[in-house]
């Protein structure tokens, strides 16, 4: 059943969809130029209100979209608002507009919700910071860029905002510019993602070139199908065209040279390179742990809930193209799977609470990529699952980061071993953190359970048994490391004076925690399959599939149990003595034994055999190759600057030699 939509007569929110990114932009300009010098406090209010207004509009758009295209039916792509930006030549125009379809609506909601909460939280967290107003200006800039990215109806606009997001992330990571580590982290993030964007750019150019060449042959069919849903004529760079079966069928038939690889695969792998950079997929992940140098609300907003999912969003947006080129999709699946395992293993050994969360984010992003990778157009459950996990993950990971921020705010340290016993001092933070931990570990009835379940189901359903097993293992590891930091932070004794004197965060900070906690609990009950779908068949995953839920829960329980075993025994001496009343000898022996096991497992086995080699590989090979290329560029700079001797006669000699060289080239080329 095709939904009849009159694109010219939509409701207010749809017709004015540009308001969503416009609010933060206006607020950014106002705050940065005018309000910030006047009042720090007022800057925060204006910035928060602007993002909140965006949230209201986004909600209105969502309501209207699902009123027009009811859940469970077909979900066409609408472009209710656009204007012409660059006219390269007749028939090749790049527009700026807002795209409205299930995933953009979902992302708009996620971004505005998390951003609003982070704004509120930050107005408490950043209190007293000299850069208070500047911080809110940057946050607004980031929110604007991210919304512009989400709303992009064509790949050029996407690329433009992609870069803007990178710039604002650079500014926010380097917010504490007095700290050398923050400066180098921001530089690293920018350079690594920029390097990845290089691939993206080449991919865009390749796509654009062929899109334009094939436009005449394939566009009319696409245009006839979609014209009713767009306010502007179809253009070669539009996603609607790039993901249309007509174009992909033609483009997918072109081979790149005689290698047997299609050009489509090449282009899609290049595009995925950009996505992998933003979403910190192995081996381009190295910037994300360092990015934790930024203020914690930034980590929650950018490096957990929104910017890092831009890569997932891009792959989802271009999903039909990836699906036509099966090879590119396989790359996505395996890179995602490997990243999720790799990051989870490293996560078990970190002691900095934000770094653990960063590696956890990497791992969960890998999960989302994996889910996209195992989906196909015929069996698109993974697509829905990925978006579902993106949604639930945004809730509980933002909550975890904000909770961690609250703890750090109280203890003034990032080290989990500086904390301990905080459950009594910070009850609200503790409860919400626990909810988020349970959610990410995948315990029923919290949201993580449902979305993870769906990812596992999709992997199994499409025959990727190996990936399924791997994902199951990662689920166990996730539970382990999350409970590890949870237990060490909130249970046991106060390990330092600061932990002893910690107190609950102010209401401005805990109210967002509570809201996010509620969302983390209920988000799993959204029937995502009805709202987000692609392809012909509707991805429905009814109820709980026990064949998957039981192994997943067992894995989570195993992880949790190991954490309990390892971290409560040695951590809380008082409990141990209470239990030891029966037989002190055996207790000491057992304790000794547990310590040994702990040491052996963590330090000897995991650390030496797995984590350390991985970390070494990470630092020496992945990081090293990035540094080496930077070094090589600099070295070539010195090498070439050697021509600049300051001697005018050597300049003249080069000049004359150059003329001779041109002559040689001409002769060689033309005779």
């Amino acid at each position, binding site marked *: 059943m095709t939904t009849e939509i009159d694109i010219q007569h939509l409701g207010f929110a749809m017709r004015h969809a540009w308001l969503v990114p416009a609010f933060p932009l206006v607020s950014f300009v106002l705050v940065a130029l005018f309000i910030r010098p006047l009042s720090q406090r007022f800057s925060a209010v204006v910035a928060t209100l602007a993002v909140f207004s965006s949230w209201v509009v986004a909600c209105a758009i969502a309501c209207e979209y699902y009123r027009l295209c009811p859940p469970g039916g077909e979900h066409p792509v609408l472009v209710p608002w656009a204007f*012409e*930006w*660059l*006219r*390269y*030549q007749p028939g090749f125009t790049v527009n700026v507009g807002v795209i409205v379809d299930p995933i953009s609506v979902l992302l708009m909601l996620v971004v505005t919700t998390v951003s609003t909460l982070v704004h509120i939280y930050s107005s408490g967290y950043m209190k007293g910071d000299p850069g208070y107003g500047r911080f809110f200006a940057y946050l607004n800039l980031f929110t604007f860029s991210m919304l512009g990215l989400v709303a992009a109806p064509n790949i050029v606009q996407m*690329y*433009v905002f992609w*870069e*803007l997001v990178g*710039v604002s992330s650079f*500014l926010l990571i*380097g917010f504490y*510019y*007095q700290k050398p580590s923050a*400066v180098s982290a*921001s*530089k690293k993030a*920018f*350079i690594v993602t*920029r*390097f990845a964007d*290089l691939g993206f*750019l*080449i991919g865009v*150019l390749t796509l*654009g*070139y062929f899109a334009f060449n094939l436009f005449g042959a394939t566009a009319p069919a696409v245009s006839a199908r979609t014209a009713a849903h767009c306010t502007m004529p179809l253009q070669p760079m539009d996603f609607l065209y790039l993901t249309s079966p007509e174009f992909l069928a033609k483009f997918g038939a072109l081979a790149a040279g005689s290698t047997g690889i299609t050009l489509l695969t090449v282009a899609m792998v290049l595009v995925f390179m950009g996505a992998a950079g933003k979403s910190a997929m192995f081996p381009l992940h190295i910037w994300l742990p360092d990015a934790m140098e930024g203020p914690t609300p930034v980590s929650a907003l950018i490096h957990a809930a929104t910017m890092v999912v831009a890569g997932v969003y891009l792959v989802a947006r271009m999903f039909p193209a990836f699906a036509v080129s099966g090879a590119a999709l396989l790359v996505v699946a395996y890179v995602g799977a490997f990243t999720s395992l790799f990051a989870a293993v490293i996560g078990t050994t970190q002691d900095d609470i934000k770094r653990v969360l960063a590696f956890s984010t990497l791992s969960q992003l890998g999960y989302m990529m994996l889910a996209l990778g195992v989906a196909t157009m015929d069996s698109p459950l993974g697509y829905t699952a990925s978006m579902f996990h993106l949604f639930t993950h945004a809730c509980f990971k933002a909550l975890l980061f904000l909770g961690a921020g609250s703890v750090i705010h109280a203890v003034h340290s990032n080290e989990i071993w500086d904390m301990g016993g905080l459950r009594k001092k910070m009850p609200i933070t503790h409860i919400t953190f626990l909810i988020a931990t349970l959610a990410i570990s995948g315990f029923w009835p919290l949201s993580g359970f449902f979305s993870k379940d769906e990812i596992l189901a999709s992997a199994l359903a499409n025959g990727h048994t190996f990936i399924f097993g791997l994902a199951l293992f990662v689920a166990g590891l996730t539970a382990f490391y999350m409970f590890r930091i949870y237990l060490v932070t909130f249970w046991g004794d106060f390990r330092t004076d600061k932990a002893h004197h910690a107190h609950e965060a102010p209401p401005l900070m805990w109210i967002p925690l509570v809201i996010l906690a509620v969302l983390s609990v209920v988000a799993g009950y959204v029937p995502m399959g009805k709202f987000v779908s692609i392809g012909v068949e509707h991805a429905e995953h009814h109820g709980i599939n026990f064949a998957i839920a039981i192994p997943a829960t067992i894995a989570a329980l195993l992880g949790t149990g190991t954490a309990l075993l390892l971290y409560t025994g040695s951590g809380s001496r008082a409990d141990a003595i209470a239990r030891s009343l029966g037989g002190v000898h055996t207790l000491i022996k057992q304790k000794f034994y547990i310590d040994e096991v702990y040491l052996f497992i963590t330090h000897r086995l995991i650390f030496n055999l797995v984590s350390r080699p991985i970390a070494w590989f990470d630092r020496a090979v992945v990081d090293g190759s990035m540094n080496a290329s930077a070094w090589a*560029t*600099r070295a*070539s*700079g*010195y090498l*070439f*600057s050697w*021509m*600049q001797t*300051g001697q*005018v*006669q*050597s*300049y*003249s000699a*080069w*000049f*004359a*030699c*150059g*003329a*001779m*060289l*041109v*002559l040689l*080239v*001409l*002769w060689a*080329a*033309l005779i």
Partner: protein
Amino acid sequence: MLMLPEIIVVVTAMAVLVADLFLTERLRMGVTWLSLAGLAVAAGAVFATPMNGSMFGGQFVVDAVGWWFKLFFVISGFFTVLLSMDLLHGRTTCRMRGIGSPGEYYTVLLFTISGMMYLVSARDMVLLYVSLELATIPLFALAAWRREDIRSGEAGLKYVIVGALASAFILYGLGLIYGLTGQISLDAARVLKGSPAFWFAAAMLTAGIGFKLTLVPFHLWAADVFEGAPMPITAYLSVASKGTGLAFMFQLFFRMMGGWVHDWALMIALFAAVTMTLGNCVAIVQHNIKRFMAFSAISHAGVFIMGFLGPHDYGVPAMLFYLLAYIASTLALFAGIVWYSNETGRETIRDYRGLSRTNPLMALAMMLALFSLAGIPPLSGFVGKFFLFSVAAGAGFHWLVGIAAVNSTIALYNYLRIVREMYIEPVHEDGPAAPASWSLSITTAVLTTALVLLGIIPFFYNAINGSTIAWLSAVLPH
């Protein structure tokens, strides 16, 4: 009256020279006003002239491309005067000795502008050569204008020697072409068949173009001359002189060797690749901002000539548009640099640290200009680069586009060095005390607005595109 803009510029130059004799020291500012007014009127006159027509029996021709070039030259001259006035009239915090004689300075500057304008209208070798020299030789003097600064003199020396060498090479090449065709007209050479002498002449002329446009390996003079020349002249060299090089290349490659452009595409692509790579790599290791800007200009030369590769009805408007974007961005950046050097006398990149706190608006403008030069969307530099890259891709030079993309990453790193100094490093304890003068403020504001608007409003590109297509269909063999 097709020659009206040139005549206005020349008459203004003469008037400035005469006025300088009669004005008292107190009224000396009058020469600046006169120059500015003359250039503004000349810009209006350019607008008033039609986009095609010829005078003196075809000796002097105006076409759409020349029309745009003239407009760009007048605009860059206008802003160069605005950038120079504080320095020339001693209205700076950091007192500079050895720069003065504003009347002569403006006169010489205006003469070079008229030379550039004649260059694009030339249709025979004599006018081409003479106007090229008019656009070059006085620049030697301007580079050496601060006669008490040994670096300025040294810059003049290097410029004059390499410039004379280039001039001799160009002349030798033109002579051979003249011999081959037997005619002094530029268009006559388009029917030439390939022969060793023709290729030899082409190599000589390419070297001459390379000198003006700073293509590798003819670029080596640029860094030293840029560093030694007075700051506004450095700005002028990096925009107007580059524009002249491009115009000269247009004249030679489209008019004279029009039938050969496609066969030489590989050579142009090699030049583009080597030039932008070397420029960007060497810029990494620069500390002096003038040298840095020299290498930035060199790498942009590589980007410019990518426009010669593709189908010309895309390439030519793309090059013109990028030239406009480049002029706006570079001059906006130089407004900040001139201001900083006027106030403190310092010119290394490290000196700009913390500028965003002491003068946030100027830092913002400089950042926008740097981002535009680096090609960050949606600023004009991005749009221009996008067009040029797609021209090269359309011509099948995918490897060149790859190299250019890698280069834009390196370039971004380079420009971010300055942004980082301004935004992230602690404030310079001895930074500029005074805010920018009104002339620099106006320059900055106008050009920054322009570089943003050029990128987001398609009008300008459409205007260039629309007017040049007719010219191209007339001038190019298909």
